[in-house]
């Protein structure tokens, strides 16, 4: 395959539609007779439902229907467990999944109690006020340790406790390692909740065509195929009767892969029942409760090191907040558990976590999906060890990196894809060296920082290292078709939420078939076009779907040669494909255009050789043996005002390795966007719940997303250690920018104020929180 477009900065093919406002997002769907939905949501975080009276709401003019749990009959049932727990010995898992409308009990603020369908959203919201709800408040469950204490109020009475899961994974013998350690670093770390906050809120629209007996659903989902496959039987339909379209999506980031949200389950049901199209669009306040979120964990971690800083072992016990239900299994905490090992040799490891039910919104992966916690814990432990042992913080990392000749590297525990955690390839040494070089670490530490300090400037540098498991299975598929017009049509099952699939997949296919990327028409996220696959998540789209596109294009390429050879009177190996044609090598006049060849391959009359397939089309699938491992190093320069605790980011450097790069423009933009998200999670964004489970900042007024003034332009350096696990050699990069940011921030801030006694073991910080921590550190020092 000649690489003309693969690896190039091809400008995006989808831009025109998006720039001109022509791109269809779910809330843009407007159909004749369409009805609109509003949900009545619980104000209480934990309560028994004594009564719900919707009679007044039903009589309001413009209201077509009002439903409560009782009205759903047999349709009411808890959603499926989406991700069963991995087969880890001794694992405990209590399944409790979300319901379409609360019955008997509400378990988090914002849980839906009733659904109003009306002529307009305005009228539907008016009708919400007509509904009389009687809730008997119960004590909320918000703190993780308190939730597991004796006598704590129970979120799910049937389990007798708030324990959602317990998982232990070990390797080697930590106790023995600990006994021989020179130094033991023990700390508690707290990471708190944040929202994904895509600018587009969720939406679902559905239309039932009673004559064709077909249901069309537009959904802001990252997983249209599983949504179709799950909803069809629930609604009493065959899968082939249901078409789910994920059109342009305004940002996914994880929560849009949570499936069978109450609204997804109810809107199509209502459309079929009412025989009219129905649409629900989430508003921003709802998004803070009704769309899943992530990140609350409490770690008690310990690092055992030798005198030279070599890691002997790590022990980590943590509590993971799973929210009111646990439909997504243990993906997030297992990621934390696995990613903690990082790019380091950790001969002995003991990790145990307890997932805890709380009366808060459901937790499912958000960009990083639990990896940030593991990275934060390990990088901080190394920082504290370096300080105690008097070793340079980059040097201590260098001494522990997995060597470049040690791949595939087996960490002996299980990853989120249920496969052993084996790193496929990487050069962690080179990444660290590159970061040190680009950031100017050595000179900064030796000369610049001391000089700046003398000038009264408090500038710190944080350098952290991480790995990221990406490109996991199970599989994806693609179908490539050459149309009579010469256009190449590519269809794949994953959806697109801004990552540029319309361009990157076109680049892959264009190279194989000798056309330009703009000759490749890509369809993603439409189950009518392609109906096998699992979705866009876990930084796997380019790896898995991209590899499937490649495989399908190769098959079509073979078809082209097979069909063209007899027509051009030469064996296939004398043919070449380029410029949209297949031609005899060295004889440019003996050529057939691909479109024309497609027509010839699909005769209207006559006979074909038995066993021939018509046209130039092929479908292929790709399922990797296991996920691969991307890696990187972040370096951040911050200036801190010791009086006000104001923090300014001066420079942000990312060295990353995502294997072979399909489109550097896209990769760099993913890293930049990820860093912005990471900066938000580290310093501005925190979902503040009070002790009654009330969310205190459910709006952008108080939940602060970073703006253009808060995010610097990231300086980037690429390394490429191709993955042997897929034919493209590529690895995922969608989450990379967001993963180690908090750890980098923490190290840099401490480095800016070395005499403050400050130790940052919690995230997110905010200027207020940092100020409090500084004051407390100062008081501790004066007391000592």
């Amino acid at each position, binding site marked *: 395959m000649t690489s003309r477009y693969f690896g190039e900065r091809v*400008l995006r093919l989808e831009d025109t539609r*998006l720039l001109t406002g022509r791109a269809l997002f779910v809330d843009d769907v407007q159909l004749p007779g369409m009805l609109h939905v509003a949900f009545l949501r619980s104000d209480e975080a934990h309560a028994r439902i004594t009564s719900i009276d919707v009679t007044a709401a039903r009589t309001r003019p413009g209201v077509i229907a009002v439903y409560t749990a009782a009205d759903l009959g047999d349709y009411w049932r808890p959603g499926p467990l989406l991700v069963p727990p991995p087969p880890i010995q001794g694992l405990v898992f209590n399944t409790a999944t979300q319901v379409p409308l609360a019955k008997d009990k509400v378990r988090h603020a914002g849980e839906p109690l009733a659904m109003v369908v009306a002529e307009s959203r305005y009228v539907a919201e008016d009708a919400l006020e007509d509904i009389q709800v009687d809730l008997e408040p119960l004590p909320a469950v918000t703190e993780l340790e308190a939730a597991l204490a004796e006598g704590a109020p129970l979120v799910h009475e049937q389990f007798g406790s708030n324990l959602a899961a317990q998982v232990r994974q070990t390797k080697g013998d930590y106790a023995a390692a600990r006994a021989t350690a020179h130094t033991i670093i023990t700390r508690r770390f707290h990471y708190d909740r944040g929202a994904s906050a895509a600018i*587009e809120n969720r939406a679902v629209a559905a239309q039932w065509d009673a004559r064709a007996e077909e249901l069309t659903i537009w959904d802001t989902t990252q997983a249209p195929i599983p949504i179709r496959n799950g909803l069809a039987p629930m609604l009493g339909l065959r899968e082939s009767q249901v078409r789910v379209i994920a059109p342009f999506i305004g940002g996914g980031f994880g929560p849009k892969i949570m499936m069978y949200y109450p609204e997804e389950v109810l809107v199509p049901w209502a459309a079929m029942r009412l025989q009219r199209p129905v649409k629900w669009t989430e508003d921003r306040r709802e998004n803070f409760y009704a769309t899943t979120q992530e990140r609350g964990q409490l770690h008690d971690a310990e690092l055992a090191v030798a005198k030279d800083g070599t890691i002997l072992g790590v022990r980590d016990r943590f509590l993971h907040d799973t929210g009111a239900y646990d439909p997504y299994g243990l993906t997030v905490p297992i990621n934390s558990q696995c990613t903690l090992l990082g790019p380091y040799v950790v001969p002995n490891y003991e990790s145990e976590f307890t997932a805890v039910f709380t009366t808060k919104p459901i937790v499912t992966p958000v960009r990083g999906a639990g990896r940030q916690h593991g990275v934060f814990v390990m990088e901080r432990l190394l920082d504290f060890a370096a300080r105690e042992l008097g070793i340079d913080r980059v040097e201590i990392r260098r001494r522990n990196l997995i060597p470049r000749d040690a791949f595939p590297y087996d960490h002996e525990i299980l990853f989120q894809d249920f496969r052993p955690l084996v790193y496929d390839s990487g050069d962690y040494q080179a990444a660290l060296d590159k970061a040190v070089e680009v950031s100017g670490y050595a000179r900064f530490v030796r000369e610049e920082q001391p000089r700046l300090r003398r000038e009264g400037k408090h500038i710190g540098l944080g350098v952290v290292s991480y790995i990221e498991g990406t490109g996991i299975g199970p599989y994806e598929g693609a179908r490539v078709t050459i149309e009579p017009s010469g256009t190449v049509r590519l269809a794949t099952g994953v959806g697109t939420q801004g990552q540029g699939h319309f361009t990157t997949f076109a680049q892959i296919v264009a190279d194989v078939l000798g056309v330009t990327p703009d000759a490749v028409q890509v369809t993603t996220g439409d189950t009518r076009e392609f109906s096998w696959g699992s979705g866009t998540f876990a930084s796997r789209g380019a790896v898995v779907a991209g590899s499937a596109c490649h495989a399908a294009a190769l098959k079509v390429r073979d078809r082209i040669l097979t069909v063209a050879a007899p027509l051009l009177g030469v064996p296939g190996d004398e043919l070449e494909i380029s410029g949209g044609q297949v031609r005899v090598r060295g004889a440019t006049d003996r050529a057939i255009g691909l479109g024309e060849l497609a027509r010839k391959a699909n005769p209207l009359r006559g006979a074909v050789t038995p066993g021939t397939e018509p046209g130039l089309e092929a479908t292929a699938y790709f399922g990797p043996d296991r996920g691969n491992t991307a890696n990187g190093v972040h370096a951040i320069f911050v200036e801190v005002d010791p009086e006000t605790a104001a923090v300014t980011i001066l420079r942000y450097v990312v060295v990353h390795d995502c294997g072979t790069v399909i489109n550097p423009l896209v990769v760099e933009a993913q890293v930049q966007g990820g860093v*912005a*998200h990471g900066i938000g999670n580290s310093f501005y964004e925190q979902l503040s719940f009070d002790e009654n489970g009330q969310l205190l900042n459910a709006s952008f007024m108080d939940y602060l997303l970073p703006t253009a003034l808060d995010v610097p332009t*990231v300086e980037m350096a690429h390394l490429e250690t191709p993955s042997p696990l897929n034919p493209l050699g590529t690895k995922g990069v969608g989450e990379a920018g967001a993963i180690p940011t908090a750890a980098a921030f923490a190290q840099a801030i401490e480095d800016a104020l070395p005499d403050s006694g400050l130790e940052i073991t919690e995230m997110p910080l905010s200027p207020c929180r940092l100020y409090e921590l500084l004051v407390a550190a100062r008081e501790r020092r004066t007391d000592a």
Partner: protein
Amino acid sequence: MNGQHTIRVTVNGIRYERSAEPRLLLSDFLRQELGLTGTHVGCEHGVCGACTVLLDGSAVRSCLLFAVQADGHAVTTVEGLSSGDQLHPLQQAFHEAHALQCGFCTPGILLSLIPWLEEHPNPDETEIRAALSGNLCRCTGYANIVTAVQRFAAGAGSR
């Protein structure tokens, strides 16, 4: 339900006469009544800027205005920036700088920038970032948007 008011508004150069409830937001009027769905709604409380349109040439948040307030005025939405496939130079600059990913916030950013760039044809990076600070983007991390604006400003002389 409150009484209907007549709204006469010019949008992207076309005159419309419609009736609407006083409480109907301008963003909903544009999207649902006129079918101009390029203006997106991200927060409905005026923070994210995705709904930005021009009202008589000035950038406003259409989620914070009622449709009736546009009566007698002229509105420009993202659909009015290009003609056919001929992009506005700022849109073209966004494309060339890869300044959009999911594209949901993009129309609001374009409309916020256009009047501002008329007043500030030669902005430096700090000024650009300050001008952008009223628009939230969750995908791009803003860097390429800044580059796009710089490209646009640099190319302005040749237009």
